[in-house]
C-alpha cells in the first residue's frame, strides 16, 4: 500500500497551497491506526487518543495537514474546536461494531449540520474489513443514512487499517476534491 506522500506525488491535478483534513469518528473506530498506517509507521503500539494527533505532509507546493481527534464520548464535545477552515472531512466507522452503528450515525448527522462544515466533502472509511463480521459499504451507507445527504459529495470506502487495503483509494478522491 502506498503511503500518503506517494499519493501526493501521484496526483493527476497537482494541488497548490495548504489543506486541512479532519479525521473524526467514535473511539476505537481506527482513526489513529489509519493515519499511522498512511504515514507508513508502526501500528502496534497505538493507544486511545486523549487529545489529538496531527500529521503534516508536503509535496511540491502543497501542504496537507491531517488532524486526528480522539473519539471517546467525553472528548466529543471538543470536536468543534477543530472545525475552522476544514477542507475535507474523514469519518471513520468500525464496520464490525453493529451495536454502535446508531450512535455513530447520530454523531455524523450532528456534524453534517455544523455550519463550519457546510459543503465540505465527506469520505467515510468503513474500516476493519479484515474482520469476518464487517458490514459492506452499502450496508453502512444505509444504516448511517448517507443516502439522505444532498448538500455535499460523499464517498464510502471499504478499508482495513491493519492491512492497508482501501486506504489510498478513498484519500485520493478526497484530495482531488479539495478546492
Amino acid at each position, binding site marked *: 500500500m502506498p503511503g500518503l506522500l506517494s499519493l501526493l506525488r501521484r496526483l*493527476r*491535478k497537482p494541488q497548490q497551497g495548504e489543506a486541512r483534513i479532519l479525521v473524526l469518528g467514535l473511539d476505537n473506530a481506527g482513526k489513529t491506526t489509519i493515519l499511522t498506517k498512511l504515514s507508513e509507521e508502526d501500528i502496534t503500539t497505538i493507544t486511545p487518543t486523549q487529545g489529538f494527533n496531527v500529521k503534516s505532509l508536503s509535496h511540491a507546493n502543497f501542504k496537507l495537514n491531517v488532524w486526528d481527534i480522539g473519539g471517546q464520548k467525553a472528548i466529543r464535545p471538543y470536536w468543534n474546536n477543530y472545525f475552522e477552515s476544514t477542507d475535507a472531512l474523514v469519518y471513520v466507522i468500525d464496520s464490525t461494531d453493529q451495536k454502535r452503528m*446508531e*450512535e455513530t*450515525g*447520530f454523531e455524523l*448527522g450532528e456534524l453534517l449540520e455544523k455550519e463550519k462544515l457546510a459543503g465540505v466533502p465527506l469520505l*467515510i472509511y468503513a474500516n476493519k474489513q479484515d474482520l469476518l463480521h464487517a458490514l*459492506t*459499504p*452499502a*450496508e453502512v*451507507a*444505509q444504516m448511517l*443514512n*448517507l*443516502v*439522505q*445527504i*444532498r448538500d455535499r*459529495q*460523499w*464517498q*464510502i*470506502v*471499504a478499508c482495513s487499517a491493519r492491512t492497508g487495503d482501501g486506504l489510498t*483509494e*478513498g484519500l*485520493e*478522491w478526497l484530495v*482531488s476534491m479539495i478546492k
Partner: protein
Amino acid sequence: MFGLLHNLFKAIKSRRERRYTVVLIGLDNAGKTTVARHLRGEAASAGATPTFGFNSDVLGKEHGVSAGGGVFSRSLTVEMFDLGGGKNIRGIWGRYYAEVHGVVYVVDAADTDRIEEAAACLADSLKDPHLDGKPLLVLANKQDLPSAMAEADAAQALGLASGSTMAGELGERAFNIVGCTALYELSEEGGRADPRLRRALRWLLGAIGSDWTQLAPRVKSDVVAQKEKDAKELAERKARVAKMREERARRQEE
C-alpha cells in the same frame, strides 16, 4: 381581481422554473462520472477516480440546458446524481429512485465480457416500482474503442430489443439508446464535446418535459412520503441514542 392576476402570475412563473432530477447508474467503470463531467463542459481526459458514493452536479443555461422557447421559455435546471457502480455500493441506488424524473444508464459498450452483467443490473433496476414509466436513456459509451458495440448491438445485448426479456420492463416509458464517447480528447470534432451526448441529454429532458404533468406530482408526493419516513426514523433513532446514553451514564454512576 388583483389577487387573481397575482396568482396567475405566480402560476406562470412556477411553470417557468423547473428542476429535473436524473440519476446516472451503471456498472463500475462504465463512464458515469466522465459523462457527468462532459455534460458540465469539463474536459475529463485524465480519467476519473472510481465513485464509491454520491456526486451531484447541477446543469443550467450555461450548460446548454433549456426547455421550450419564445415568450414562455422556461428556466430549467437539471440535477444529476452520479452514483458509484461498484458491486458493494450498488445497494444505495434504490434510495434515490423516488426523487428522480429520469434515468441515465451508462454502459461500457466495449466491455463485451461484462455486457451480461450490465444487462442483469439494468433489468434489476427497472423492476423498482419507483422507476415505473420514468424516461430511460441508455448510453452505449466508449464508442472510440474499436471493440465497442454499436447502438443496435448494444440494445440487443442488453435485452432491450422487442421480443427479448426486458422489452416488458420498458413498459410504456420513453426509451432511447445512444452511442457516445464521454472522453473529451477522444471524441470527434478534435477534442470538443461529443454532440451525441448533448443531443441525448436533450432527448431525455424533452421526454421528461412531455411527461411532466404526471411525473412532477408523483415525484413530489413520493419525496414527501420519503421525507416523512426519514424524519420518523431519525426521531426514533434520536430517542434510542438518548436512552442508550442515559443507561450508560446510570451504569457508570453505579
